């Protein structure tokens, strides 16, 4: 076990974990940031997606040591009041069914729109096809990404 200093959602936090611990379990088990979900543990489903220095990253395969000195953002820190354009769009279009995969979906959508404020169909598809939603909310995710792009411009 070693002590690591992490910057998560704008806060400096200290954790005492072994060096190979994936960030996912540090967030969930150590820091009680449970909005980031475990779905497969092998970067297949995207439920654990967070931002590291703004890049969408699969926290289930990212050891804690790779995040040192970087800015980590989780769904809890995507916006202060839950009103990021992506969150607003997801709510307006009533995207979630069970909702379990949606924090990961939104983190990828938010990163996409930051990088590319006007994604076309193909670009949205490329980004969002990296995720699995077992409830099949893909149609509404598609609409929501487009709505979020509009909201972001206001």
């Amino acid at each position, binding site marked *: *076990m070693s002590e690591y200093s992490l910057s998560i959602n704008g806060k400096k936090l200290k954790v005492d*974990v*072994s060096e*190979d*611990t*994936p960030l996912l*379990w540090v967030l*969930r*088990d*150590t820091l*009680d*940031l*449970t*909005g*980031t*979900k*475990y*779905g*497969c*543990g*092998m970067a*297949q*489903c995207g*439920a654990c997606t967070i931002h590291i220095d703004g890049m969408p990253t699969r926290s289930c395969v990212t050891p804690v040591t790779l995040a040192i000195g970087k800015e980590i953002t*989780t*769904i*809890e820190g*995507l916006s202060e009041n*839950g009103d990021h354009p992506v*969150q607003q769009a*997801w*709510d*307006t279009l*009533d995207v*979630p*069914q*069970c*909702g*379990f*995969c*949606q*924090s990961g979906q*939104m983190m990828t959508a938010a990163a996409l729109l930051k990088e590319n404020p006007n994604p076309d169909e193909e670009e949205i*598809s*490329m980004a*969002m*096809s990296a*995720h*699995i*939603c*077992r*409830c*099949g*909310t*893909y*149609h*509404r*995710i*598609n609409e929501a990404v487009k709505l979020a792009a509009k909201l972001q411009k206001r």
Partner: protein
Amino acid sequence: MKNNRRDFLKNMLLTSGGLVIGFNSLGNSNAEIISLENLKDELLSNAFLTINSNNIITIFSPNPEIGQGIKTAFAVIVAEELDVDWEKVVVEQADLDIKRFERQLTGGSGAIKHSWERLRKAGATGRYALMASAAKKWNVSAASLKTDKGFVINAKGEKISYGDLVKEAVSVEIPKEIPLKSNKEFKLIGQTIKSVDNKTVLTGKAKYGMDYKQAGMLYAQIVRPQGFGQTLKDFDAIEAKKIDGVIDVISFKDKVAIIGKSNWPIMKARKVLTINWTNTKELESDTKHNQIFTDMMKNGPFEVRRKDGDIEKAFAEAHKIIEAEYQCPFLSHSPMEPMNFFADVKTDSAKLVGPTQTPQSAQNQVAKLLNIPVENITVELTKMGGGFGRRLNNDYALEAAEVSSLIKAPVKLMWTREDDMSGGIYRPAVRYKFKASIDKAGNVTGFALKGVGLNAGNSTRQDNFPVGAIDNVLIESADYKSDITTGPWRAPITNFLAYAEQAFIDEIAFAAGKDPVKLRLELLKKAIEKPVGKITYEPARFEKVITTVAERAKWGSAKKGLHQGFSVYFSHNSYVAQIAEVEMKKGKPTLKKVFAVTDCGIVINQSGARNQIYGAIVDGLGHAMYGNLNFENGAPKQTNFDQYRLIRFNEVPEIDAYFVDNGIDPTGLGEPALPPTGGALANAIFKATGKRIYKQPFAMEDEKVADIL
């Protein structure tokens, strides 16, 4: 946290007054006012609906929410009859309480149909009491009053809020027959209403089973036999126990449990744990299953499920005989949240918290397992990351309880994805053999179905269409007791049977030289005019969804290059007809669009209902195309999403979802749109390519259709 909120609500009701409605325990559907005196002694979760003096309306939703939208739909129904401002309604998940709520389970798409009247009465009882109180206050008749958005309004237009009436309302006598709104008076039902959980889900605050924590809680993961049919021989945990954060390694019932302070050390320990398993018999494999299917399809033993007329005579006199066999693999449910449960077992009591579709069954089974009085076991429901039928089985909740009782500590049992996919309770593998006869005029004279399943129970639905519309019918099933555990999977049996049957009826239509839609309508006409034996469906409702989808998709006059496939199915009391459209692009078929017309009676919430139709079609397409679980040495070969392919964002076609609005009392929507999907796709593939597909997954059957999505 949830309990703190409840205590707060309870204190507020006790100090500043409020109206509390619950269900009586007499077993009928009437609601009653719960006195605040009683509330002091009872858990607030016994209440169904509370209105406090601040006009905050709290509705407790008793049924497990797995993403089907029941928490929102239930509250909409209550709020409709109560006539309140939807924005002021707070919806809470109720804990298990079998005295107050009945049928606290999620299965069979049955909640709405079952609870429709009860929920309306609960809301209407509150409204009645509030109107009677206002009538007394104004000294007018209750009949002269109306309500809107949480206010009672008199003939002069004066308003009084529900919150200002609750103190008087508690002593109003409730009549046996409580008046309900007519459909025309509905303000909320049928509107587009967002899920009540969006706010917490979209900010990461929603607590799923996996997210639940309690002070002093330990984590556990379990290593189960590597193949079905194996038992535990011995294990060596010396290395595993050396890992920092691992507390203990124990065994019970052929399983080895690792206890730790968090998940990662346990996952590391699993890699260095040495376990020896014993093969007590021949372990099952695809090869063995193929032999069983071949043998049983020939030799049975079959149980006759239905017999009408004389099938042998019909076949002997046939102008044409059509035969086909369909094959369906095992499937994993794979909800996005793997199985997990929390248990805190004490000598004579237990607290259970987690995701389950059947909380009462969890309570009863844990009571039996640990010999604890059932009344000393509480079950708290969390949000659930999907279910699809997997969480009808409480094996993982029992494991959590057993581990907690063994280590004498509160514990969260976690399954990894690999545990989830290899842990059993699959959709059973089934094969169907159909045989039909037609006469010279192209009429269907005989229809026979043999279903053989591996732990499938009755793999047929013997009273469903086209049975009832054909004079000579024989439906039989045979079942093999396999070591591989199975359970209900979204739309049990019909999730595959519907595809096989709808594809076969398509074959009959082509053999008879008839249009597939017209053939169904002819058969239904016969079921209306001269039904054969008992039928469970209403032919007229069937007809309506068929003709409506045919109109919407311009069946028979689709533009050139579009190939349409038709399918229709009745399940879980709802009717869904579908047309899939395939386009040929550079010699390869592409699925462009699926039209779906649904009759589930009254649509409670347009948004939730559409979500279910979209989701079920996406689910149906994905599993028809890719779903596959192969067995070797008693274990599935696929253990995670790298090998077990699920449908993704870039693979969904456009969907046109339409509801027949006939004002009939509502039925369920969690499952009914899934069964017809595979058939519509397979029939469209046939139209486009001339090839019939007889086996799931479709993608492995034909190279040309592998990229159809």
